[in-house]
Every structure is written in structure tokens, then in C-alpha cells.
């Protein structure tokens, strides 16, 4: 069986340096070790899945990567740079964008404005420019608006650009979060349960979109998902987490056969008998 510490890199990324690397990552909440000795390497255009039973620490890992929590141990390297001194917004500026398990849209803003917030750092005019409406304001806003509509068109959402984000159906809200994350021009996109609450048809089309986003933007995608059909369908590498520890990493087919994974999900035969 593959050692989880040895990275699994898709062939096309073989001679590229990884976009994200976690070494011995861990965090304690008081006496509780939520994540321990987590190692992963993600290459620049890889789609990688993170699975595990409820409470295994998957979202905690996303929160560590985006510095919502500061790790107790270990380091995170983003394109070779240690993110030790970064806070959440720095991490985003350096290239990690994310979505949230419990959707966090700007509900009272329009769909377009949500994406424009994502494009905030792509615009360059200053406070003075906005109050006096200098040419830099008009140019920047026009380019950003066009870019936002272009991004919305990935999910065919450009026609609802003026709707309030909070009024969208659940699936569209999830898709809008992905668009907003893409707007920040990331090199790696973290998706926290993107298919939660979607029906099978929506999940099917989301799978296509995930692949399409990777191909057009040439970015890595790291996703947490419970829908095994989606994980096994789009991911090239899958990492399995249990009780805060990485128990396996491999290709989807390797993971499906791994006895440790089966044990984590279904328990051992002995326990089942008892």
C-alpha cells in the first residue's frame, strides 16, 4: 500500500513544483487534538479530494489552510512560501480561495456585487479616486464588471446578476460562492462540500464544471465532499482523514480498496459482530 507521505502527482504535473504543501500540520483545541501530523502535496492542476467520517477534521484543515485558525504545529507552504506569518486575507492574496460548508454569501448584495467583492484586489483605484470619480474608477469598474459577468457565465448566471444573492435557490448559492472564490484569482481553490444539498442532476453538472474550471483556469482544486460518486468521479487523488489523522492517500480506486478506509467508514468485522 502507498505511503501517505509520498505525494501522488498526476503525470502532467511531474516536473512542476507543488502549489500547496502541508508538513506535519496539527492543531489542538485545549486538550483536544483536532488535526495531527497532516501531510499533503497538491500539484498545480490537480483535483484532490479530502474525505472522512463526520468530525474527522476536514473543515478544520480548510480553516488551517486559510488561517481562520492558526496551526499549533507544522507548516503550510503555498507555492514554496511558508504561510506562517499570513492572516486570512494575505493567504487569499497569495492564492488560496475557498467556499464554505455553511454558505457565507453577502446575502443582501446582488449576485454581481458578490463577485465584485471577490474582484476587490483586482481593482486598483484608491479612496480618492472613488470619491472624486477619477477616470481610474470608471476604467477599473468597467473592466471588473465585464470580468464578473464573464465569470458568472461559467454557471450561466449572468442573467440573474442583479438579483439579491440571498434570494437564490440553494444550488445557485453554492455555485455563486465558487464564482466569488474564482474572482479572487486563486492558484488553488478549496471547495467545502460543494455538492451538499444538490440533487443528483445538479451534482452531475457540478462535476463537469469542476473539471472545466480546472482546465480553463489551470488551477488546483482541493475539495471536501461526502458524495462518493463526485469524489471518485472527478478527483485524481483522494486523501482520507479519520480522527484528525491522514490514514490514506491514493488514487480513487486505491482508496476504495484500502482496508484502513473501509474500516474507518464501516468499522471492523469484529466490532460489527459484537
Amino acid at each position, binding site marked *: 500500500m502507498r505511503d501517505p507521505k509520498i505525494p501522488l502527482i498526476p503525470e502532467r504535473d511531474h516536473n512542476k513544483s507543488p502549489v500547496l504543501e502541508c508538513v506535519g500540520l496539527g492543531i489542538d483545541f485545549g486538550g483536544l487534538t483536532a488535526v495531527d501530523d497532516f501531510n499533503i502535496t497538491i500539484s498545480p492542476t490537480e483535483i484532490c479530494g479530502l474525505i472522512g467520517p463526520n468530525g474527522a477534521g476536514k473543515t478544520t484543515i480548510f480553516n488551517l489552510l*486559510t488561517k*481562520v485558525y492558526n496551526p499549533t504545529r507544522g507548516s503550510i507552504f503555498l507555492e514554496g512560501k511558508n504561510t506562517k506569518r499570513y*492572516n*486570512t*486575507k494575505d493567504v*487569499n*492574496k497569495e492564492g488560496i*480561495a*475557498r467556499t*464554505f460548508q455553511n454558505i*457565507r*454569501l*453577502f*446575502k*443582501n*448584495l446582488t449576485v454581481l*456585487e458578490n463577485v*465584485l*467583492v*471577490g*474582484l*476587490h*484586489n483586482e*481593482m486598483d*483605484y484608491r*479612496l480618492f479616486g*472613488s*470619491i*472624486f*470619480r477619477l477616470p481610474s*474608477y470608471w476604467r*477599473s*469598474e468597467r473592466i*471588473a464588471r465585464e470580468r464578473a459577468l464573464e465569470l458568472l457565465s461559467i454557471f450561466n448566471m449572468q442573467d440573474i446578476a442583479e438579483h439579491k444573492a440571498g434570494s437564490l435557490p440553494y444550488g445557485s448559492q453554492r455555485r455563486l460562492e465558487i464564482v*466569488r*472564490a474564482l*474572482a*479572487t484569482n486563486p492558484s488553488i481553490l478549496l471547495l467545502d462540500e460543494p455538492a451538499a444539498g444538490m440533487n443528483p442532476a445538479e451534482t452531475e453538472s457540478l462535476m463537469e464544471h469542476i473539471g472545466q474550471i480546472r482546465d480553463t483556469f489551470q488551477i488546483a482544486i482541493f475539495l471536501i465532499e461526502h458524495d462518493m460518486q463526485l469524489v471518485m468521479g472527478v478527483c485524481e487523488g483522494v486523501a482520507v482523514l479519520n480522527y484528525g489523522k491522514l490514514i490514506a492517500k491514493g488514487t480513487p480506486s486505491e482508496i476504495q480498496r484500502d482496508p484502513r478506509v473501509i474500516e474507518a467508514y464501516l468499522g471492523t468485522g469484529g466490532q460489527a459482530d459484537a
Partner: protein
Amino acid sequence: MKEFRISMPMRYIINSLLLVAFIVAGHLITQSGLLGRAHNANIVSVGIFIILAVSLNLSTGYLGQLPLGHAGFMAIGAYAGAIFWRSGLLPSTASVPAGLLVAGLAAAVVGVIIGIPALRLKGDYLAIITLGFGEIIRVIINNLDSVTGGAGGLHGIPRHSNFLIVYLCVIICCIAIHMLMKSRHGRAILSIRENEIAAESCGINTTYYKVMAFAFSAFFAGIAGALFAGNIGLLVPGEFDFMTSINILMIVVLGGMGSMAGSVIAASILTSLPLFMAALNEYRMIIYALMLIIVMLFKPSGLLGTYDFSLSRLLEKLIRRRIAAKSKVKEGEA
């Protein structure tokens, strides 16, 4: 068919013409003495409270925080402006705008100093800490006899605040905040109100924008304070107590948090009420309170909620309706 839209330059022209007309008409009317002194004085204090409410709306309605020390910033601006004007550093024509600017900047600087520690807190904690700061400012002014005149007050402040100056400041304040809010900076401020964690994950420097919005808010409160000083010509620290902060907050809440038009309307109504209800004497406060209770019961989001009035949007709607009606008539003829 493409929807009818008024182009941006055209919107600016229409709005500026209307504003100029408003200022000129207001100036002529107040100068002519047609309304009488009581009403003239009321119009000026309405203007001052509009600035206070619109600026507080920036940090409550748009930024989504709950500061309770707005009167403190007003006090700083009032004393800074009054001391500047009394010193007579500049000739009178340049003195008025310079004094207002000094007042605004003084309040903004204090806003940044208070904002950096205070804005680390949220909700009721922020309310209490800003309330504390507001009181500290008042107590300091009260005890700084040599500079501020202490509890006895500061006398002989040149009474600059007439309709023209106050309402020019109202317009500048409203336009500046409007322009700020309809830009990437404004969207960043709104995103903090909506969801701070998501805003940060979008690469927005939330601390910077919180402090910036707070400083902006303090800046215009400072200007309003200086106008207040120039209106009555006498300052006593007691004017800027906790109740004044509450009154301003009440205006914002009544008008609808996040609605500039709401703040303007509520400021006009609440500030004018005492004058129009003078005949009712002591029943006045009961009616005032009842009105607030009724609004909060039937429209908890305030008079206008988060709706903001746009003249151009209204015009567009009317013109579109006309176009639609005309094309229907044509179809009928065909």
C-alpha cells in the same frame, strides 16, 4: 428591446442642477426672513442632524457595527472648530471652510485612535466601549478649563452657520458617502456587514476598512459639531452627553439602517417635531416616544429599511412606462 437608461453624465447633470436649485432657493428663502427666526433656526439644526445621522449610518447601517459615541466626535469637532474660529488665524472667508476641515480632521484622527482598539470588538461590547470613549471625551473637555472653558462653556464663537454653509456641508457629506459606497471600498464595507469571515476570505483587509469607515463617520460628525458650534455661538460639554449619541442613533434606526434617504427623512422629522409640537408642552415627549414605538412595531427595519432613493431610477421607470404605453398605442393603430 433594450431597456431605457439615463447615461451617467446625464444623471450627474440632472442631480447637480437640482442641488444647485435647492441651495439657491433655500438660501433666498431663509435670507428673506419669510419663515421667521424659529423656523430658520430649525432648518439649520435639521441640516446638522442630517449630517450626524448620515455619518452614523455609515458605521451602523453600512459597516454593521453599533458605536454609541457619536456625540464624542461631534464634541471634538465642535471644540476644534470653535477654538480655530476664535483664534482668528485666517480672514473670515477662508476661516469658515478651514475651520470645518480642522474640525473634521480632528474628529477623524480621534476616530482612528479609538477605532483601532474598539473595532476589535463586536456588537454590544463595541457599543459599551464607544460609549465609554464618548464619555471620556466629554469629561476631558469638561476639565480642560484653559483650552475649552470647562463646564462654564466656550463663549463668543463666530456664528457662521447659515443655511448656505450647513446645507453645502450636508450635500458634500451625502455625496462623499454615496460615492464611497458605490465603489470597491464601499462594497468592502458592506461585505464586512454581511459576513466578516467571507469578506476576509475574499482578500479584504477588514481591520483597515472598519477603521476607515469609522474615521469617515467621525470626520463628518466633527464637521456637524463645528456647524453646531457656529449655530449657537456657545458650547457647554453637557450638550455632548450620552443622550445625544442615543438621539442620533434613534434617527438612524427610525430611518432604516443602511438607507441614506431614510436617515435624511428621519433627521428632518425628529429634529423638527419639538418645534411643531411646542403647543403640546409636556405631552410632547409622550407623543415622541409613542411614535417611535409605533414605527418599531409596524416597521422594525425603519421607515425605509435599506431602500435608497435614486432620482434617476425613478425617472427611468417613468420614461420606460411612457415608451411602453406609446408602443402599445402604435400596435393598436396597426
